[in-house]
């Protein structure tokens, strides 16, 4: 597929049309362009109260007195709760339940929740928070992740500061090479910065349970954590997905879920909680800052001999998904290259910085910036073109990755690099006459008319695992029901998979239309009345929930065929095709409708092929389900006097196995690339002494339409025989490679080493 053949099919008033492989429109698009789509912050019920959260201003402290008396006396306040009011498990967490629902005794990061309030107006709730008296004994925070892992460091948790250590040992640890390059790379803390704030509505139910409507990535793990802390059986906590305004990993951990339910059950009223943007910066985990020390050895003709790395990720105050992030950074830490000898140590540390967890790219992003920076350094040392060096070492199908796993489907790393490098170059900014200010670094700020502006070109390529790894029981559940609506067959597809903007609702309907041959398909709102679909993360939902919906449709066809043989016993050669019952001899026997006197329904739990754990000493194991690759070329203009960067163009090539919805695939590549640009140039939560200095969109910058350049895409469709429809997860790979490509381009323009991202103007001007 090329980028030009994706002319969209316009969704009509009845909803989306289209089957697998077509650019079907989103079924929710009409509601989203009219403002009718109900996001989690839009929910409203008569008599509902507003929740608010008191957060610690200190990153490390001991709590003394906690007095809520004055807050309770504020007119309009319905409840004020502290840790004493948590009836069940007082901690939560995705992998290790180590985070207090409401803090007691210890404060481990700035923004940690201490108390919650329900009141008749959000402002009343905020004023009540001001009336809660907390005395803190402030302690020196642990803020440096490497220092936190040293002997004798102050402990953030009683068990020590190491969250996880993953070792990769392959080949000869003492291998020698003709050429060696080393570097240490630093990555700042990136925020997912979804636009729809953490929010939801908890409604107390007559059975003593609660119904929660919330924006999340994984309904069932939310439910498990909420139920545990409420001290309720899971079936008394019913979670329904409300409209999600973006996720990118930040909704994998719970934020307001438990708090809103506690308040609802205490007050007997529906309770709505909506974080402000500032609170959102404290209300979810971030991308791990990292320190990565790499040494690459190669032959004089540019073949990698070894990679050695020591990677430390700052996990912040609580574990979140750090254990899995560490595994990704370690197992993918050598990049998409064939390397015979690999020795990687990757650790995550507890500190008193903000907790870090899932963000698009999940550990692979940090590693990719380091190994790609190293490849450029090695190319420069060898006098080789950076693309040529990468191509010489490129992984391919049949290669063995450093965990010993053999890549058993397409790995077109060299082809992707060749595609982006072969694209024609855009004209120079200063071609002819007066330059358009808007095309120059600094734009209409009028900071240059071209003087001091230098162009650079850079490349990056990355490897990302798709789906959950390391032997995790990864599955998705789909319920598909066929019935008649006004005599026409119609399918209901019901899963708990979270639509977070990526287009999964569209895809589920496309699969049902394709597999069942019906036009009328409704994707039922996701909730916990059906089995888990796992998280909308790890680029896994097309694979997993797509796979589950297809499997359910296949089972439904089997069931219908059984009905058909009973209904038409004189035909022994029946099949279902295109929504019709067909006899090989006699052609069409009947429409589907003839088989749907009774509705037909199946529920299927679908798994990908199993993976295995990593050996704890060597990191060997078939830990991953699927690998995905993307490559970028970046072209930048740099104002070397002011340190301003204008990204002129980004080209991306990615293999998606099968473009299930070409328009949506492009949208994922564009959006993932933009987040990589943000990390390269502007996005950083600035943390000093454990405190966040820029919790707003005024001071935490994400790319605007002026920052994003035009993009050129090449989308390959090299089917993975192990995956449904041959597809390969799309969302994360482009987030990996755009960052190193952009930084490489700035290096090419300036000759600077630039080992830290985001690259700030002062790094370019030398005034940092």
């Amino acid at each position, binding site marked *: 597929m090329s980028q030009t053949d994706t002319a969209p099919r316009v969704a009509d008033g009845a909803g989306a049309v289209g089957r697998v492989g077509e650019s079907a429109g989103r079924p929710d698009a009409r509601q989203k362009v*009219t403002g009718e789509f109900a*996001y989690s912050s839009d929910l409203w019920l008569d008599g509902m109260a507003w929740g608010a959260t008191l957060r610690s201003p200190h990153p490390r402290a001991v709590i003394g007195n906690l007095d809520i008396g004055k807050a309770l006396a504020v007119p309009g306040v319905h409840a004020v709760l502290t840790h004493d009011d948590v009836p069940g498990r007082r901690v939560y967490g995705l992998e290790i339940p180590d985070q207090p629902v409401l803090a007691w005794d210890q404060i481990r990061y700035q923004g940690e929740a201490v108390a919650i309030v329900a009141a008749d107006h959000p402002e009343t709730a905020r004023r009540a928070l001001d009336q809660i008296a907390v005395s803190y004994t402030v302690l020196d925070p642990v803020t440096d992740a490497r220092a936190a892992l040293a002997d004798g460091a102050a402990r953030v948790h009683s068990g020590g500061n190491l969250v996880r250590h993953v070792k990769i040992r392959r080949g000869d640890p003492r291998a020698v090479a003709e050429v060696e390059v080393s570097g240490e790379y630093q990555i700042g803390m990136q925020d997912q910065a979804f636009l729809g704030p953490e929010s939801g509505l908890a409604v107390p139910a007559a059975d003593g349970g609660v119904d929660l409507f919330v924006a999340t990535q994984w309904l069932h793990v939310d439910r498990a954590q909420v139920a545990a802390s409420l001290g309720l059986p899971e079936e008394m906590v019913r979670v329904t997905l409300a409209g999600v305004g*973006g996720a990118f990993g930040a909704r994998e951990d719970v934020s307001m879920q438990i708090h809103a339910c506690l308040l609802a059950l205490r007050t007997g009223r529906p309770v709505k909680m*909506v974080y402000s943007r500032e609170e959102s910066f404290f209300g979810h985990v971030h991308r791990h800052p990292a320190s990565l020390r790499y040494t690459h050895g190669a032959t004089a003709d540019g073949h990698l001999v070894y990679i050695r790395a020591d990677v430390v990720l700052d996990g912040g105050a609580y574990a979140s998904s750090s254990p899995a992030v560490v595994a990704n950074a370690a197992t993918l830490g050598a990049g998409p290259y064939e390397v015979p000898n690999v020795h990687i140590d990757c650790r995550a540390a507890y500190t008193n910085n903000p907790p870090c967890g899932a963000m698009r790219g999940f550990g692979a992003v940090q590693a990719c910036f380091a190994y790609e920076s190293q490849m450029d350094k090695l190319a420069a040392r060898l006098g080789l073109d950076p693309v040529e060096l990468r191509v010489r070492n490129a992984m391919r199908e049949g290669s063995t990755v450093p965990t010993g796993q053999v890549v058993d489907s397409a790995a077109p790393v060299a082809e992707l690099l060749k595609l982006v490098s072969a694209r024609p170059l855009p004209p120079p900014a200063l071609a002819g006459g007066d330059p358009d200010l808007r095309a120059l670094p600094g734009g209409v700020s009028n900071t240059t008319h071209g003087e001091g502006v230098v162009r650079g070109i850079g490349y990056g390529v990355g490897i990302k695992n798709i789906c959950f790894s390391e032997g995790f029981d990864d599955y998705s559940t789909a319920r598909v029901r066929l019935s008649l609506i006004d005599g026409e067959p119609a399918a209901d597809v019901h899963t708990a998979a979270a639509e977070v903007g990526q287009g999964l609702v569209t895809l589920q309907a496309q699969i049902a239309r394709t597999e069942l041959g019906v036009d009328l398909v409704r994707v039922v709102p996701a909730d916990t009345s059906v089995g888990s679909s796992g998280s909308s993360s790890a680029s896994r939902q097309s694979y997993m929930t797509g796979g589950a919906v297809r499997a359910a449709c296949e089972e439904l066809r089997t069931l219908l065929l059984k009905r058909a043989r009973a209904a038409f016993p004189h035909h022994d050669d029946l099949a279902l095709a295109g929504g019709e019952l067909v006899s090989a001899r006699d052609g069409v026997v009947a429409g589907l409708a003839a088989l749907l006197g009774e509705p037909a329904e199946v529920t299927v739990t679908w798994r990908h092929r199993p993976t295995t754990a990593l050996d704890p000493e060597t990191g060997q194991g078939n830990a991953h389900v699927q690998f995905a690759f993307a490559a970028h070329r970046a072209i930048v203009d740099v104002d070397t006097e002011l340190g301003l960067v204008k990204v002129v163009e980004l080209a991306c090539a990615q293999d998606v196995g099968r473009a299930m919805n070409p328009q949506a695939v492009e949208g994922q590549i564009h959006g993932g690339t933009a987040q990589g640009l943000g990390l390269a140039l502007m996005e950083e939560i600035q943390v000093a002494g454990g405190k966040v200095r820029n919790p707003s969109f005024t001071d935490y910058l994400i790319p605007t339409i002026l920052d994003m350049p035009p993009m050129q895409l090449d989308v390959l469709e090299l089917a993975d025989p192990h995956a449904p429809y041959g597809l390969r997860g799309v969302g994360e790979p482009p987030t990996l490679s755009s960052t190193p490509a952009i930084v490489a381009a700035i290096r090419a323009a300036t000759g600077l080493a630039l080992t830290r991202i985001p690259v700030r103007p002062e790094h370019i001007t030398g005034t940092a």
Partner: protein
Amino acid sequence: MRVNLRVNGRELTADDVWEGESLLYVLRERLGLPGSKNACEQGECGSCTVYLDDLPVCACLVAAGQAEGRDVVTVEGLANGGELGQVQRAFMAAGAVQCGFCTPGLIMQASDLLRATVGAGGPAPGDAEIREALAGNLCRCTGYEKILDAVRLAAAWTLDGAEPGREAEGRR
């Protein structure tokens, strides 16, 4: 306090408004119009863009009292009796909608740009002009490419006086 204003052509009254409330809060929580979005409430993201007396503004930065007696148009007011506006249709056709949280604000801002350009008999805005006009609207999902496509498409439809598929849809 009480606030009287005209929203999408209807005279509306909001009672018991606290003086610190924004126009955005009144629209969303008191008048049942949550289409304008609350992504930052600091005037940085453009998600709450509405027209106040025909000028695009961030509703989060307008105090509710400032809207007294004035004319407000929100994203809910763009569809004419269920018939979507051209920019709305173009966003759908171009794939410019993902999570959609930025979409109402972008559609308001893009509609204002097109009203002032092709809608006033002028030429289609160039890419640099579109980028400048939409620079105050953050989107975290799309990387903006398909938003640019949508604006170009809507401009082209206006200039051509025709839109593929519209005639067929009208006959149904």
